[in-house]
């Protein structure tokens, strides 16, 4: 099945129980000789920072606020994402089992 990345960008994602997780904001891909495989999806408002390449700007603010959980990004491995309905992507796992990065 073909899915348009540019339209998937910004769609809301629910977890397996129907709980709101956030929006898809970025895609981790692995590129080799001829292919480009999607490893993981980054979800959550703060993933926008990733996409804007704005970490140098945000990091000092984060440091200033001494908070670890301030900017959370969920990284969802491709196996855990169900894209059978591209307009309503669902996780195959629960929100609490998700991995935070940064």
């Amino acid at each position, binding site marked *: *099945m*073909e*899915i*348009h*990345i*540019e*339209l*998937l*960008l910004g769609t809301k994602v629910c977890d397996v129980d129907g709980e709101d997780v956030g929006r898809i*904001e*970025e*895609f*981790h*891909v*692995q*590129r080799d000789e*001829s*292919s*480009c*495989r*999607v*490893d993981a999806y980054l979800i959550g408002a703060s993933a926008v920072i*990733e*996409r*804007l*390449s704005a970490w140098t700007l945000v990091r000092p603010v984060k440091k200033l606020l001494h908070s670890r959980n301030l900017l959370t990004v969920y990284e969802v491995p*491709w196996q855990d994402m169900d*894209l059978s309905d591209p307009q309503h992507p669902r996780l195959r796992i629960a929100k609490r089992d998700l991995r935070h990065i940064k």
Partner: protein
Amino acid sequence: MKLIRDVLDKKLIDLEQCDMGRVSGLVMYVGERSQPHISHILIGGSTLWMRVHPALARVSNRLAQLWGPKHKGAVRIPWTRVKSVGRDIKLDVEARETGALAWEIWIARHIIERIPGGGKEEVE
């Protein structure tokens, strides 16, 4: 590599260093069990306007039917033709043959060349 930051909206350059537009969209192929991969790069057409609002995409399609080059819809370039991803994205294709320059050539032939001093679009 990050797809939105490093690929989407980047400029595409062909074998002869000719600008051939920007990445308007990307097609991901999702199989039953296999790992999803990027199959095509999309250039132009209503892809861009679809990103803003579906209504704009409809308008752009309607207008393209009334006017412009024959080649309609977005140009699809297989990911296998990507040579490198850096400041710009370099492709292993010739822009003219992909249809990515359809509008450029159409406007050159129908308008610009007809104005004195416009020059010829094609190199002899």
